[in-house]
């Protein structure tokens, strides 16, 4: 990883010349690739998407201001926008890669999910709108902090918390039906 100082310097250089983006690409490739492959399981599509994300970042790096948002979240926001654009336009299949550990705890399930309960939970999650599902995905499947969820979705940490609790309540209610 780049130190904060080195990162600032590198970003300023990349603003003037895209070929100077190399060290930033190296530093953040895994972050972006990780975000993408949690959502796109087709190799070629994932590759195209990552390429588009970095090209977009190089094209718009001039607009990046250090005081606004940490660079990794700026990149993740681009990744998120590109993901939704591509999935929508190209009709790609969007994967939700789940991991129940944290969610089980949050919705207060006493035991590990049975197959039937898993299917029910998937059905409930599938009924959520994209925005709500994304919050569940970021918070419980990718185990990100509320602050991170907020940065990615461009909302405050507190708002991320409130929204999350609302969705959890919704899920619990649906599961009880």
């Amino acid at each position: 990883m780049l130190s904060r100082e080195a990162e600032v310097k590198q970003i300023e250089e990349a603003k003037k010349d895209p070929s100077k983006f190399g060290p930033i690409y190296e530093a953040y490739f895994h972050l972006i690739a990780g975000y993408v492959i949690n959502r796109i399981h087709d190799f070629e599509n994932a590759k195209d998407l990552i390429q588009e994300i970095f090209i977009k970042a190089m094209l718009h790096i001039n607009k990046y201001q250090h005081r606004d948002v940490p660079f990794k979240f700026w990149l993740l926001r681009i990744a998120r926008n590109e993901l939704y654009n591509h999935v929508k336009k190209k009709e790609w299949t969007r994967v939700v890669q789940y991991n129940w550990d944290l969610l089980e705890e949050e919705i207060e399930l006493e035991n590990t999910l049975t197959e039937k309960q898993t299917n029910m939970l998937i059905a409930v999650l599938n009924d959520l709108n994209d925005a709500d599902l994304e919050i569940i995905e970021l918070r419980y499947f990718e185990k990100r902090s509320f602050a991170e969820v907020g940065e990615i979705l461009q909302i405050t940490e507190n708002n991320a918390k409130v929204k999350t609790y609302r969705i959890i309540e919704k899920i619990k209610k649906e599961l009880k039906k």
Partner: protein
Amino acid sequence: MKRIFKSEKPSFSPEDLKKSLDFDAMVKQTKTIKRIKFRKNLGIGGILVFSIVMLYLALFRNDKKTALKTETLLLKDEMRSTPINVYIWDSVKISTNDTTRIECGGGTYMLIPPGAFVAGSSDSVLVVYQFYQDWADILLNRIPMRYDSAGVRYNLVSDGMIQLYGFNEDGLVEINENIPIILTVPVTDASRGYNVYKLDTSTESWTYIGIPEVIEPTFEYGFTENLPEVENTDERKADIARLKRIKLEKPRQKNKEDFAFRIEFDRKDYPELAAYDELEFVSSDPGFNTDQFSKSWTDIQLTRKRGSKSYFVTLSNGIDRIQFEAQPVFSGNDYKKALKEFETKNKKLQKEIEEKLDELERLEAQNEAAIRARNKEVSRNSLKQLTAQNKVRRFRITSNGYWNLDYPIPIGFSFAKRIARPQYVSGEVVIQPLKGFLIMEGLRTYIEINPNNSFNINKNGSTRLLVMTSTDELYAVNKLELIPEDDGTYIFDMKKIEMEGKSVHEIKQSLGVQ
């Protein structure tokens, strides 16, 4: 959107993806996209518009060199012979019906009122602009800085220059003179008498437009003295967390297998149990043993277990004393009654949480808006501070093109001496200065080289000089070491600054410009 839920990870890893991607190809593609970006921004008819723009600029620059450098769209033509990378233009698509504020950096901003562009039926205009923030930008972009007034020639300085054009699908759109764009610029020195000039691109000279308005600290921009409040939501959150911790226990129905027993208690002391006629208790406490019921007990006590629906039952007979935990169980109508009560209470609790969450969400949204407004206010306040120091100037932009804010300096300072002339090697001119930029005792001025290839400079001052030659070469000298000539003039050595293949930023760095 098609969704699939999977617990398995994909068969490939980030490393696999990285191996198959070529970063250099991405950089190349980025450069290509930058070339076509402007066309893309224009949307439908973009290519046509692009051609119009190119033609317009070629005519408007009155220059035979119309070939554009691919990665520097809209670049001024006089830069063509030097392959340097200049800035990509900033562009913002604005609605013609709204007021748009565009920040240009360093506190400078444009206010574009509705109807500022004569855009016909278009409801949007693409505003393409560059704000020149320092002298190197102006010099490297070869912007002429000549100013003639009543036969007297001056060099202009600049404390803020903008080049701006509006486009819609039909091409360049004019600015409505009656609804001008307002440019607000913080300047470096409040004591200077600033002027506004517009570049006449056909003669490459500047025309005096007028005096900019000094923004007095009246804060007519709507500075809010009372910043919007951000309400502390901690207590509300704690309250919601407290409510969420409340776990109402569902009443337990008596099973056939249960070893249930009745306890006589004063119903007044236990109002939560008073309504149930057939109430019994069961215990799963390890300390509980059904054999204990074969003994005789003289005293039975029931006490609530804090934070739960359980009770402690204490039995004593003067010799023995036992205590175990027990829970009420309901049967028949009692169960129905208890269940209904539980559901009502639970619904009430959920409703309360829901209402508090609604209120919290509303407050959070209100707080976010307040934080945004506060941040905006902070940025305005820094401008306000400059305004209070009379450092902010404002002027109207009534047409497309270059607008400059500053004042002219006569060619030939009274205290300066002629010191420069072309340099020759084997009888051939190797440096023929054409335009220059001089930093001299805190003054910054552009040098128009005199026809006899000399210019005026204070040889005793702390001087820094940059010269752009007639052959598009850049020379610089940081400290003038003047060499006297027999004819009373001076010469000095200048260092050539390599520009080929470099960005403006790199050139500025090599010149020590931040």
